[in-house]
């Protein structure tokens, strides 16, 4: 036996004893081989150094604070630390009574005025709104004050902003949704007072939810009433100045302005190394214009942002709903002006080329393509390449078919790019700020919107290959098929859940007039038919035409590989 093997055996003996809580000395282990003592001692020391690799459940143990009971008030089982904020630590927990996952926030310091905290929490608990994280309970266990709320599986905006640069239209869409939720809370008399990226959670579908409503500010405020609350860069001048009588829902609108500024430019409007200087800037300096920082920001969007940042509350939008409306307008204004500019510049070019006559013929065609409004006219819209319609990530085709359910959407598709952290819609029908009804490729997998939400399969769609994808939005469920095989069943569509039915199925992005989530790749054929065409596995039709099944499931729309959109039936 070599020395190395010998050492290894001795080390195994040492470790076995160690695991049983006994420490053998190198001297006793090497009684008859004194020359091995030192090398054995070194190896034992090394293994001890690496003990972190062998300790059981190292990770989960360390995330728990020993001062917090594992089972709060005999009901909430604390599982894992998931975040930390001004208020304290946030844990993933399990509500043993209602058998569900919840988030438990534990106050960093004991609140001096628990009655006040409880009162505020009870008030906030009445706030039920889809865009606001619901508070369920508040309580105390020993010296631990805690708040129980919905557990949102996802991330928060602060994290997302570090990883992802939002486009102006994404920012506008997100803020519209936040402003809408905020408006409902404001109407019920709540003011958040600490809106910032970390307090905006994003669920798995990327929908924003406001958290810490009222609570964060209340807790901070209670120990010494009157002190300014909030997070300095997001604080409105009236908060910074401590003019409590001026703090109302418009304080939140200011914070949304800061958030919007940050999302659009990557920086907050006022930056200073020391808090005193930052306070001074918030109070007295006008916010800088956004477009010198990022020229791609539309003027109309910049205008909305700067109005939110007005020093005096009276100069801001009067309500969050007014802000949401202005945001919506800003996007459509920008869209219109972009098309006008495009058409105008194309017109000028053509004129300059001395093709004034041709210009008057082609300009309308280009106009249509940009506006992605091609209905059943085969002369414009995305180009036909290699016998299929090519979508370049900017184009789409409006089928003109008003969305309805039950419906079966089918498509032959050959994606050329998987986009990270986003969905490319093959067929969509959303209304801005709402989910639509549609079929998407999310990163690499098939997903579907069903008006009340979105769900995903685990089916990967290969790049540069033709695949048949179908979605059956049925009476009792939504079924997704890949090459004729059922890959996912989701909830049914309640089309009445939408605020309006004024939308159509669009091929190539998320919805008509919504310039996001475009598809990149080839689409060969599309068929929209009434009812549930597929219940079980099937062999996909290589191309779509009226068929024997049409009596049961009338075809409403066909796009074929020659880019000839066809309507049948109504």
């Amino acid at each position, binding site marked *: 036996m070599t020395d190395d093997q010998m050492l*290894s055996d001795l*080390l*195994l003996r040492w*470790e076995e004893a160690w695991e049983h809580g006994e420490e053998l000395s190198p001297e006793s282990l090497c009684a008859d081989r004194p020359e091995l003592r030192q090398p054995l001692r070194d*190896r034992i020391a*090394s*293994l*001890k*150094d*690496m*003990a*972190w*690799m*062998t300790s*059981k*459940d*190292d*990770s*989960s143990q*360390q*995330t728990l604070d020993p001062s917090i009971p594992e089972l709060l008030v005999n009901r909430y089982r604390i*599982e*894992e*630390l*998931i*975040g*930390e904020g001004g208020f304290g630590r946030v844990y993933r927990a399990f509500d043993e009574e209602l058998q569900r996952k919840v988030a438990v926030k534990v106050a960093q310091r004991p609140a001096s005025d628990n009655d006040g905290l409880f009162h505020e929490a009870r008030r906030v608990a009445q706030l039920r709104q889809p865009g606001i994280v619901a508070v369920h309970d508040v309580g105390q266990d020993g010296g631990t004050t805690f708040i129980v709320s919905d557990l949102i*599986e*996802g*991330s*928060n905006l*602060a*994290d997302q902003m*570090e*990883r992802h640069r939002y486009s102006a239209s994404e920012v506008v869409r997100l803020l519209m949704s936040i402003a809408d939720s905020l408006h409902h809370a404001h109407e019920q008399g709540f003011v958040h007072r600490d809106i910032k990226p*970390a307090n905006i959670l994003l669920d*798995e579908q990327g929908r924003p939810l406001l958290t810490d409503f009222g609570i964060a500010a209340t807790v901070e405020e209670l120990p010494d009433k009157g002190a300014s609350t909030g997070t300095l860069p997001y604080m409105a001048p009236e908060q910074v100045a401590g003019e409590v009588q001026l703090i109302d829902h418009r304080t939140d609108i200011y914070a949304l302005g800061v958030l919007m500024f940050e999302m659009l430019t990557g920086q907050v409007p006022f930056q200073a190394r020391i808090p005193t200087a930052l306070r001074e800037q918030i109070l007295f300096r006008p916010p800088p214009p956004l477009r010198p920082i990022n020229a791609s920001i539309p003027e109309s969007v910049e205008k909305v942002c700067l109005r939110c940042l007005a020093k005096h509350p009276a100069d801001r939008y009067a309500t969050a709903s007014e802000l949401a409306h202005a945001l919506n307008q800003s996007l459509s204004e920008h869209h219109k002006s972009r098309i006008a500019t495009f058409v105008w510049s194309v017109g000028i070019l053509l004129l300059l080329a001395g093709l004034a006559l041709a210009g008057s013929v082609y300009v309308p065609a280009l106009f249509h393509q940009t506006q992605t409004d091609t209905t059943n006219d085969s002369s414009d819209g995305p180009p036909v390449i290699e016998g299929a319609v090519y979508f370049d990530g900017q184009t789409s085709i409006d089928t003109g078919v008003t969305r309805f359910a039950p419906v079966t959407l089918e498509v032959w598709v050959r994606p050329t790019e998987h986009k990270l952290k986003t969905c490319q819609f093959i067929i969509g029908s959303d209304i801005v700020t709402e989910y639509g009804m549609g079929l998407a490729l999310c*990163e*690499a*997998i098939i997903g579907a919107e069903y008006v009340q939400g979105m769900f995903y399969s*685990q*089916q*990967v769609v290969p790049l540069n290959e033709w695949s048949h994808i179908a979605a059956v939005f049925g009476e009792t469920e939504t079924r997704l098929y890949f090459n004729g095989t059922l*890959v996912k069943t989701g909830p049914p569509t309640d089309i009445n859940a939408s605020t309006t039915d004024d939308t159509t199925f669009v091929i190539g992005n998320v919805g008509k007039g919504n310039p996001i989530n475009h598809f990149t790749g080839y689409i060969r054929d599309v068929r929209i038919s009434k009812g549930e065409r597929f219940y079980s596995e099937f062999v996909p039709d290589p191309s779509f035409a009226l068929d024997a099944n049409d009596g049961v499931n009338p075809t409403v729309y066909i796009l074929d590989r020659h880019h000839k959109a066809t309507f049948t039936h109504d």
Partner: protein
Amino acid sequence: MNEPVGHTTQLQHWLNRIQSGHADAKNEIIEHTCERLRRLTHQMMLRNPRVRRWAETDDVLQNAMIRLHRSLAAVQPESPQQFYGLAATQIRRELIDLARHYYGAEGQGANHHTDGEGRILPEHGDASVKPDTLDDWTAFHEAVEAMPDEQKQVVDLLWYEGLTQPEAATMMGVSLKTVKRRWQAARLALRSQLSEHRFV
């Protein structure tokens, strides 16, 4: 929260189901792997408060899940051992990517001094060489990646996948003693790698 008893048997059961075409079985495997990844990510992030603020572990999991699924969609695992190898490699790559993203020269973490120092001093009496910066963690995962296959496999199964030693022995088709020897050798090798990384 210990690993469920008999996880290996359960896994073999899933693998059989995958091979006979059950789509759900894949999801169950992914769940197990994600649970491991979640724990390891937390362990890695724990001592880096600035990263913990930025990086939602769930985001990383989501990415890993999609990547793992892509691999599984392309490859039908033939044996538990092969599956675990694949899953552990995925976990390691995710952890390395994440650490690089937040710590590396191009990482945003490098430019954010406002959050204070990323490195937290070890507590008194903590003499271990457990990596505590993301830079150290990257070095650790890379050192595992570069290990000889026999040692890497045992680290994959015991540390990344959280199996017990008897489970790993069954999986690898070797004796328990062999697993113990390799595990010991792997830790000694990593110990010397980590100190080189730290003090050179």
